[in-house]
């Protein structure tokens, strides 16, 4: 299974990026191989609008089934849901590897709604 984490840096010690759509990058953790892969979020960062939608598309194409991030807006959330990705929010303040460990030990609950207001309703 692949877990994607919004990250401020490119290694597992980096802090979780609280932003999803405009996250610095994503790390994809593969539970089968216990290894990380770095995925660019340039499309999300550069988007004039709908950054969260673009970011959701990016991690969906990587085959991620879980997303761990800080916050998630309504459009990003519906896109992630349509892609069948489980969404975990509130992981800001942790490092990427801590967030993965916390997820593996079952201490996170999946969210069923976005936690921030969108720019345009």
């Amino acid at each position: 299974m692949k877990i994607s984490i919004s990250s401020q840096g490119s290694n597992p010690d980096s802090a979780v990026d609280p932003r999803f759509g405009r996250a610095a990058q994503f790390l994809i953790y593969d539970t089968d191989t216990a290894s990380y892969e770095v995925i660019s979020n340039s499309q999300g960062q550069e988007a004039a609008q709908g950054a969260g939608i673009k970011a959701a598309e990016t991690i969906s194409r990587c085959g991620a089934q879980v997303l761990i991030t800080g916050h998630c807006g309504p459009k990003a959330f519906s896109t992630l849901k349509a892609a069948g990705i489980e969404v975990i929010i509130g992981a800001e303040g942790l490092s990427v590897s801590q967030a993965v460990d916390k997820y593996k030990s079952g201490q996170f609950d999946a969210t069923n709604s976005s936690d921030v207001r969108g720019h345009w309703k």
Partner: protein
Amino acid sequence: MKEMVVISGKGGTGKTSLTASFASLNGKSVIVDCDVDASDLPLVLSPVTERMEYFKSGHEAVIRKDDCVACGTCMDKCRFDAVHEARRYGRPSQFTIDPLSCEGCGVCVHFCPSGAIDFPEQVCGQWMVSETRYGPMVHARLAIGAENSGKLVSTVKTEARQIAEERKLPWIIVDGPPGIACPVIASITGASMALVVVEPTLSGVHDMERVFALTKHFNIPTLVCVNKWELNPRIAGEIERGALSAGASFAGKIGYDSSVTAAQIKGIPVVEYGGPAAQDIRRIWQNIEKRMESIEIPTVMEV
């Protein structure tokens, strides 16, 4: 973090003069100018710019003259009337794209049979982090004719929040743009409170009602103040009652005072220039502080 945005719907009601005074009275805030289209706050706060970044947003279609075969596909596909045609001997000879009309949709780029259209990223402005006597300031300048999608406004606000966090400044004071569309929506997104500045005119009342609808739509606690209230005391009273019945609070009124213009000419905040209006603004600021204390500050991040 307490984030207050000053808006109005109608332009020219005194947003910038008030924002400058609030910045001076508070002294522990990050100051933001979100009117990226006509940024006037720097004229009063005399910022010294320390960092400047280019703002890129979207793309722009550009036809390479030498590769264009003048088939006209781009013109057929464009829904924004951005493709212009030059004719020679009654036949189309050259197509060009008017950058000011181009919406950056990329449809012509995709369908051009000879691949003659480039699609470079567009520099649409710049934004600056500056120092003022009252604290750090983030402001921007949108390029002429650029799309004010709200992304520049969001960029500026995100930067301001970061600075507030780094420097442990408890307030963000935002000078908002006029209107009710993209840039205004981006300015009020995530704000803890909006102050609507209204002049007692029929136009002012009309525009205020639309701004109320917007802050309500986005669920933002709203305060109202009347500027130049003596112009029409009857309408000023109606505004106060209207604000209360729309669920907003009334923050006070400011008199018609020539020292407001005089302060602007001198390039200083009204409260430092003095005069009756300065007193009124002080009182309004106290009401804002009081009201802000009663608001639960939500955690809101850019998404």
